[in-house]
């Protein structure tokens, strides 16, 4: 067994420990290291696929992009919610997806849920389709394109597939 | 030796925990051996503890080295140590019986038995009222688990009632505890006793409600009418070793009434003196009556014995209602006697039921028993003892209780009810015995199991206790009365346990 079966996790745990304790003292760094090593060792057996993040920097950029989208999305949603409901045009739509890994699909679905007026409702059994519900569906084609280009492509790059 | 007082709790706890761990958990033989050895050791410990307490007086075990009233203390006085000895002896016999094969009927029999004993011993020994609650819960949860041991519809059904009723009881217990803490500001029972006398006005009223709620809870455990209805079916459906150890469970409730309503809310409780008596008087007598009706109504031996448990609980509660030192002494003796005898009878009922084919322990004609002589003698001893006929322990207990009712008013109520219930027991048990042993169609049930020597030994030990209790009645009664004296005298039961009061005189 390798010392760090899940290096990304270990890093995450290390950071999270320091955040939890609001401290970067030597003592807590030691503890953080301890947990960053032991917990992945304990839980590595509980993972199915060892999906690797190929391009971490792209991931960070993606993160901040989504964050920005979330904020704009919310203003849109807020407007729709508070405004007259008669004008609302909700709808279901199927989006074909190319990502194959579960992690990729999950990230995509989550992003879709957090961003403008869409919620991921379901993923088809063959993992080829993402079904989403849009709060205000005006242009289906545009929505499909946005999802595919703005979100799916970067994710594919990040995960390297 | 200084840690003796906690051993009756820690020994079963550690044994129980170890029995869950390999290598002890892997084979039944190991579990049995460790269980028997542990209980034997506990008997030795309890006996030494009793002797030590009897010679040197009440001792306190200060857990975590935090003095009362702040930390939890165990109080080893004559009463608690006597009951601990009773409990471990009973457990030894019941467990021994279980080792003959009942332990195979389901998982975790041995550790659960240990935890059960730990809970009971803890309830007897603790000097802290919240800790009493904790031990109540330990003994209850263990009893729930043991009650379903062996499986079957009847057990499941009885367990549902038993569990839910006790959960309601636990809630009431906590309400009562909250009130008492909210008025007295302490949890140590001796400290409560010292403080309760100074309560007055609205605080006294609130504390009274708290004490009343505790009375309901203890009454529920002790099988006080109208809280007792769960008992007969529950006990009758339990597997034999479990029913035997359950014989002491009602006594925990009764003991708690003595500890709380006689020691804390006793004669010296000021406005709150003797508050339980108003309720205990009528209810305890009615408990005897309903027990008497119950033994007439019982169609099986197990139910009959279970109703005898109710009846004896009523007799014990009468002693609590009498609220005198003599009565408490009588109660203690009667408690020892009735516990071992009913436990023995539960075991016997099981053996009898197994040998009578489909008739089981119902009072109908059946095949003859396979071991009529041993079982017959055992039954006769148990019946004579529980009826209260001489020369076995029952008569001593009965006379002690009768003598404890001293005023005419007390005698007018207690004597006829006690005596008539004895007569009822005589009639029903003689019918039961003659039917079970003699009313048979000849021939034995061939495939019926013969009781093993281990089972017979367990029954023998329990049954032999009764004549011994009578024979050495002088010493036993003396210990019981010492215990009662200690409990009723605050200078012995309360003040020595509170160092602050002793030295400073906060009183």
């Amino acid at each position: 067994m390798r010392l760090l079966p899940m290096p990304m996790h270990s890093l995450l745990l290390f950071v999270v420990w320091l955040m939890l304790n609001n401290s970067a003292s030597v003592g807590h760094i030691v503890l953080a290291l301890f947990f960053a090593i032991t917990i992945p060792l304990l839980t590595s057996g509980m993972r199915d696929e060892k999906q690797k993040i190929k391009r971490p920097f792209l991931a960070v950029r993606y993160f901040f992009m989504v964050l920005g989208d979330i904020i704009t999305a919310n203003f849109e949603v807020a407007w729709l919610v508070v405004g007259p409901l008669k004008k609302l045009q909700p709808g279901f739509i199927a989006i074909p997806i190319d990502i194959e890994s579960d992690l990729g699909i999950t990230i995509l679905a989550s992003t879709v849920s957090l961003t403008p007026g869409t919620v991921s409702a379901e993923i088809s059994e063959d993992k080829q389709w993402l079904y989403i519900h849009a709060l205000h569906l005006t242009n289906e084609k545009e929505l499909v394109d946005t999802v595919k280009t703005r979100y799916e492509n970067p994710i594919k790059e990040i995960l390297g597939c | 030796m200084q840690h003796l007082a906690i051993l009756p709790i820690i020994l079963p706890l550690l044994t129980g925990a170890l029995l869950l761990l390999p290598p002890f958990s892997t084979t039944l033989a190991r579990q049995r051996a460790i269980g028997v050895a542990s209980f034997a050791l506990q008997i030795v410990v309890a006996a030494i503890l009793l002797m030590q307490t009897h010679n040197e007086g009440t001792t306190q075990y200060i857990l975590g080295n935090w003095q009362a009233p702040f930390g939890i203390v165990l109080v080893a006085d004559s009463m608690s140590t006597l009951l601990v000895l009773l409990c471990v002896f009973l457990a030894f016999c019941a467990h021994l019986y279980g080792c003959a094969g009942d332990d195979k009927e389901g998982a975790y029999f041995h550790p659960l038995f240990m935890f059960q004993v730990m809970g009971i011993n803890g309830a007897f020994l603790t000097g802290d009222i919240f800790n009493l609650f904790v031990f109540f819960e330990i003994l209850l949860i263990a009893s729930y688990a043991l009650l379903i041991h062996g499986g079957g519809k009847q057990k499941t059904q009885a367990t549902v009632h038993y569990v839910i009723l006790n959960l309601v009881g636990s809630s009431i217990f906590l309400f009562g505890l909250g009130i008492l803490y909210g008025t007295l500001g302490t949890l140590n029972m001796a400290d409560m006793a010292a403080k309760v006398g100074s309560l007055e006005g609205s605080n006294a009223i609130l504390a009274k409600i708290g004490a009343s709620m505790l009375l309901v809870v203890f009454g529920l455990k002790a099988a006080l009418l109208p809280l007792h209805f769960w008992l007969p079916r529950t006990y009758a459906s339990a597997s034999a070793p479990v029913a035997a150890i359950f014989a002491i469970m009602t006594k925990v409730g009764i003991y708690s009434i003595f500890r709380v309503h006689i020691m804390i809310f006793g004669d010296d409780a000021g406005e709150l003196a003797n508050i339980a008596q108003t309720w205990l008087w009528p209810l305890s007598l009615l408990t005897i009556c309903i027990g008497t009706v119950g033994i007439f109504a019982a169609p099986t031996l197990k139910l009959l014995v279970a109703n005898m448990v109710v009846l004896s609980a009523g007799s014990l509660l009468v002693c609590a209602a009498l609220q005198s030192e003599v009565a408490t002494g009588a109660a203690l003796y009667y408690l020892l006697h009735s516990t071992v005898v009913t436990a023995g009878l539960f075991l016997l009922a099981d053996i009898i039921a197994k040998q009578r084919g489909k008739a089981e322990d119902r009072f109908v004609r059946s095949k003859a028993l396979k071991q009529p002589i041993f079982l017959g003698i055992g039954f006769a001893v148990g019946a004579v003892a529980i009826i209260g006929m001489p020369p076995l322990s029952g008569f001593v207990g009965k006379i002690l209780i009768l003598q404890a009712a001293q005023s005419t008013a007390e005698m007018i109520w207690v004597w006829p009810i006690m005596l008539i219930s004895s007569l009822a027991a005589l009639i029903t048990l003689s019918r039961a015995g003659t039917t079970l042993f003699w009313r048979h169609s000849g021939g034995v049930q061939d495939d019926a199991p013969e009781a093993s020597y281990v089972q017979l030994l367990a029954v023998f030990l329990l049954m032999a206790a009764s004549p011994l209790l009578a024979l050495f009645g002088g010493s036993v009664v003396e210990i019981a009365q010492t215990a009662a004296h200690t409990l009723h005298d605050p200078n012995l039961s309360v003040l020595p346990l509170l160092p602050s009061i002793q030295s400073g005189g906060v009183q």
Partner: protein
Amino acid sequence: MEGLYAFCVGILTACGIFLTMRGRSFSVVVGLTLLSYAVNLFLFASGRLKLDAAAVLGQSENYSDPLPQALVLTAIVIGFAMTAFAVILAMRARADLGNDHVDGRLPSSIETRKSGKQGGQR
């Protein structure tokens, strides 16, 4: 505030008690859970209510009574153990007895039982 708090405790107690007295095991377990909430709040309040007074040394100027809190903690845990047992017992009873009535028989069958000769503790 105390009045409001007491009112809530009372309401929870009443709700819990009412459900505990129902005939089906699930309702009873829910009732017991509600009742245990009420009990815990009650026991907690026996140390009196205080704001901004967590019993953590150095975190505030005055401290609430820590003892009832410790008691309630123990009570919560024990209550959890008991509820868990009761829940699984309810399942077991359903499996063994074929229904989820706490008496193991449906109320309709009580009528038949009453008219039958065999009563009492069978």
